């Protein structure tokens, strides 16, 4: 199955701190801008939605033609503004959409653990861009595994 997927971690000020194109399909020339645009617009919805549910995994929150935005937010219960992780996929085949959602959920969970490891690094300034290549490799490996 070919799909493009763009994965972005946004910090609590909605600043993207990590971006990755993790899909198997070739990247479209306008994809970066397009994906960013769609994900940025989806932040509005995330903000709306994050307060209506206590779940961290917000499922598919938005669709943009063929693209589905799936979100997981964290830290909501601690009174902080949510740190948002946004995922975004192209053309999920119908029959697999449920398993895919499951996959995304697991993907999010594992990436979250990775993110916590990064956060515990004393040299990492919380909220700054994640530049660790190790993190990047791991995220891509997880993407291959689950998506």
């Amino acid at each position: 199955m070919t799909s493009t997927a763009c994965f972005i971690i946004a910090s609590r000020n909605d600043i993207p701190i990590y971006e990755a194109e993790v899909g198997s399909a070739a990247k479209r020339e306008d994809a970066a801008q397009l994906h960013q645009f769609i994900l940025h617009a989806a932040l509005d919805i995330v903000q709306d939605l994050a307060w209506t549910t206590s779940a961290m995994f917000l499922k598919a929150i938005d669709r943009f033609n063929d693209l589905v935005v799936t979100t997981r937010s964290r830290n909501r219960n601690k009174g902080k503004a949510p740190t948002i992780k946004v995922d975004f996929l192209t053309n999920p085949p119908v029959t697999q959409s449920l398993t895919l959602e499951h996959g995304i959920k697991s993907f999010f969970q594992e990436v979250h653990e990775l993110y916590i490891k990064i956060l515990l690094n004393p040299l990492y300034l919380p909220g700054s861009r994640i530049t660790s290549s190790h993190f990047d490799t791991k995220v891509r490996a997880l993407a291959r595994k689950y998506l």
Partner: protein
Amino acid sequence: MANYLAQFQTIKSACPCMIVAVEDVSDIWPTVKSSFEQRLPFKKACLNNKTRNPVFLENLRAEFVLTTDARLRSRFPQEQYLFWFREPYATLVLATCEDLDEFKNILKPRLKVFAQNDEREWFIVFVSRAHPSNDQATKMAKKVYAKFEADFSSKKRERCCKFDIYGPEPNFWEELEFRIIESVKNTLDRRIQFYEDEIRKLSEQRFMPIWNFCNFFILKESLAFMFEIAQLHEDALREYDELELCYLETVNMGGIYREFGGLDRGDDQAALLNPGKKSLTQIVLDETFREFEFRQYLFACQSKSMLPFCMREVWVITACLALIDATGTKYNGEDEAPEIVKEFYRVQGDLYSLCRTKLLRLAYLIGYGTEIERSPVNSASLSMLPWPRPAVWPSVPDEASSEMLQQESPRARHFGLQRKPLPLEPTVLVREANRRRTSFSVGNASEIFYAGRIDDGLASNESSKQSPADKVQAIMMSRTYSSPGNFDCSIGRRPMRLAEIFVAAEYALKKTISNPDLQKILLSVESFEQKYMELTKGAADSYHHSWWKRYGVVLDGEIAAVCFKRGNFDLAAKSYEKVCALYAGERWEDLLAEVLPNLAECQKSLDDLAGYLTSCVRLLSLDKGLFSAKERQVFQSEVVSHAHSEMAHHVHLDVSSLITFSGNPGPPMALCDGDPGTLSVTVWSGFPDDITLDSISLTLMATYNADEGGKLRNLSATCLKPGRNPITFPLPPQKPGSYVLGVLTGHVGHLTFRSHSFSKGGPADSDDFMSYEKPTRPILKVFKPRPLADLSAAISSALLINETQWVGIIAQPLKYSLKGAVLHIETGPGLMIEESHSIEMESYRNSAQGSTDTANSGDAAKDCSPAANKHFEKLCLVNGKIDFPEWASDVSSILWIPIRAIDDKLARGSSSGGPDRQSVVDRMRTLALKLEFGISKNQIYERQSITLHFSDPFHVTTRIVDQCNDDMLLLQVTLHSQLNATLSVYDVCLDLQAGFIHAGKGNGRPISGSFPLVISPTSKVGLLFRLCSKKRSAEDENKVPPENILNIRYGISGDRTIGAHPPLAMKSNETGDTGRGLSFRSTLILQQPILNPCLAVGFLPLPSDCFRVGQLVTIKWRVERLKDNEEKRVPQNNDEMLYEINVNSDKWMLAGRKRGHVSLAMKQGSRIVISILCMPLVAGYIHPPRLRLPDVNEANISCRPAGCHMVCVLPPAPSSSFCISA
């Protein structure tokens, strides 16, 4: 049953509300009709919904219809079941009767018929026509009604009520309403049950061949409609949803032929709210469904209870516009909760943006593509939206072949940005159109099905309502029916060119569009643009009112694009700024890179130079990957060229994101108060090329007070290379405290740069650090003022006055280098520096000081250790300044300065008794010192005065003793040593003043002469002279000095480190002779004797101790001549001597001469007694009379023995004679 489809719609439209049948048994309806109908609609009602839960309704609409009415008659039973919703929900039997017989015989049998009919919910209204004044009739009526109740009402249910025409009972109407509602409720429950059973039955048979969707549809639809007229809208909606679901399942199973529909004129207009636009028979024809119409029909039915969305180019546009209008006019958000208001605006915004997208798509199709801004939002919405898939793509009409549109050429972007324009199409239109021209398609059903859920994020609320299975169904169906393109068929036909496609599309659209407004919109670019603007504004405004600010801001950007194209740069810039602020604030740089060049262009057009340059800087500070190196260089050259061009105003530019700076790692630089320094700072430049700053300056901020701080300037031109640049700033003296880096400013031409940004010391290319608080690592520490050096006098004891002496000044550095220090010396009055001598300087080590030094610093200890070589140097005083040698910079040193204190006054000796010591202050001298040191002579140690104490070598005191008989005087002279040095007296000589001469040999030497006398410090030595007071000859008188002068020749041996020491000049000459050379002179005061008694006056003893008042007393004085008074002899030729007795006449009474002359022989030893009689007048202690000799000087009188001071006088004795006579 499908035959009934035709009637179905008319039946539905014919019965808008519930029917209550009226069985008029006694022909009384016309008289009561008006009062009954006044009760409609029912104010309150409670009905059960499908799940048998009570629902409270208001204003339930109903209609009273006579059973004889044509609408209720002549219906076939089957028809009745099918369209049961239109059957009466309650039957009201109107009956009247005036006597019991009539009731029994006529009425009761007729009523029984109703009572037995279980299918109807009935009840009887007994109408009493008895007038209240007619008792007879009233009674009768009551009786009859009682009979009614007995016959028809049961315990379970009351079925009767009584209505008095002439004044109904007050609660009659309530009762009537209750009865009717009760009946309606029962009927409704029963009918729901019936429909449900039927539907279930049909559902079970669904997979059998005989199953007919029409039947199912009618039943389901009937049920839904029944709910609708019972005003149970939620149930109705649910039924319609189920119907839709079932429809989808059915058509996907196959076997039912389906065509798309929408083939008739006017189908492009959304008939969203009008289910009756087409008759159902047209929609469902002989097992065939017209999908478009059917769905539209369903939607219309659903939309009676709710307003969802649907779309399809024109249709969507009109639908959206209709919805916006409908909701907008009905909406007044005054009483709504804020969440609802927000949600409303969000929905409106969605409608607007959906409409906008579709309008863009249409505009693109007819060739307005060049007019559409290729912004991220337009690209995202259009490039992912599939092309319309008509069965046959329209071909160019013959008459339009000449109309050719301009080919699109992308607008040249500012800064010469070479960027691929963002796509506005999912696939290339030419290919799509040519492929679709001959291929056959049922229509883009998938798009329709997706439409409500997928487009533009509209879906979130709707898709959540839909079950996932439903979605799956929808998608599957679309896959099945969208047939692939058939390229084979198009062979042989010339492919259309793009311009032709546009023209063809335009013509086709013109045919399709029936709405005149919409036609007008697509007629010209201007009107399109106007509409586009209107929609964009609407969307933006709505989103701004909702939670979704980002959508609103992004659409503001689209408004800006249009404004920009129209040349309204002001508005455009404002809107673009909003968008840029949004993206920049959240740092979505890819998006920012799209918009920012536009903003820059606007600002340039507006001559907003500051804004333009800011934008350039922001462009430069974006992620490096977003622009090519060449583009970045263009940005920089724009900045630089503008900076050097003629600018009206100075422009301040914040380059915090581009130029960052930080101090060097490590501990902060430490400076003493007042010291300048050099501060080294690392500056990272984000410019792609070298940039030359005319000047660069940096502020320092004090940590203790944000207002305080200094500014460092580096006025020379500085070239910043891309990346890391070390820059040093001269640091003027700062106030004490810690300092952090503040703001970096630089000038390029007329441009002022300013950077607040503090890079953490890491690579400058990641600007994430900006968002964090500046690290408050101090870069500079200026210590509080403390003594850095000390100057003090080496000795505190007195120095020798009037001689050249060394004064030692200790210069002591206090952990601060005295390198290059200069000492200014100024002497106070009465002090001079012997400039002929050079100044000596040597290292100094005090034992006490040394130990503290050792404790403080190891270096100092090493230098000061005894083993360390002692420095010694001779220095010169130039203009009162001394330059310190190199070696003295870190160690304590002592300066020996030759000085001489001058005092012209002769030292005065004092007699041993008197306190006549010379004041110490007279011999104080001051030396003002000023030490300039530090890196740039900035540190100044100033000591206004070092007090030097000078003294004569000796202090001389005298004591004189009279030998009495031979006029010989013995003079003892004591010499007190005043100095902290050993003095040796070699010779003493006393010159006497007039009136005194040396007795004996008279060479002026003391009688006890054993020279040299050695006097140790602070001890004294005595000398004895013998002299007598005698006049000398006249020539001798001229030679003698006016005062007695003691001349002492002495020597001194002392150390300059302790105190007084041999004077300098001698030391330089000859050491052996030094002791003999010094002389000291001091005056001595000798006075001739003052008292010269010639007469002695003695008070002779009184006869008794006590006097009494009134008692006579003789007081006697004896006067004796002690010696001849030669001087007085001339005026007093005779022996007469004047005397006088002084007495207080109040207290004494005198008898005898008070004043007179007595004769006293001139001869020595002659004496006389003067006596006087006197009487005391008052009692007590009183002064006795006193004798005075006015002619004789007091100095020549000696009172010996002295008279008594007071005498005691007793009161008079008591007089007995007086007592007797009495």
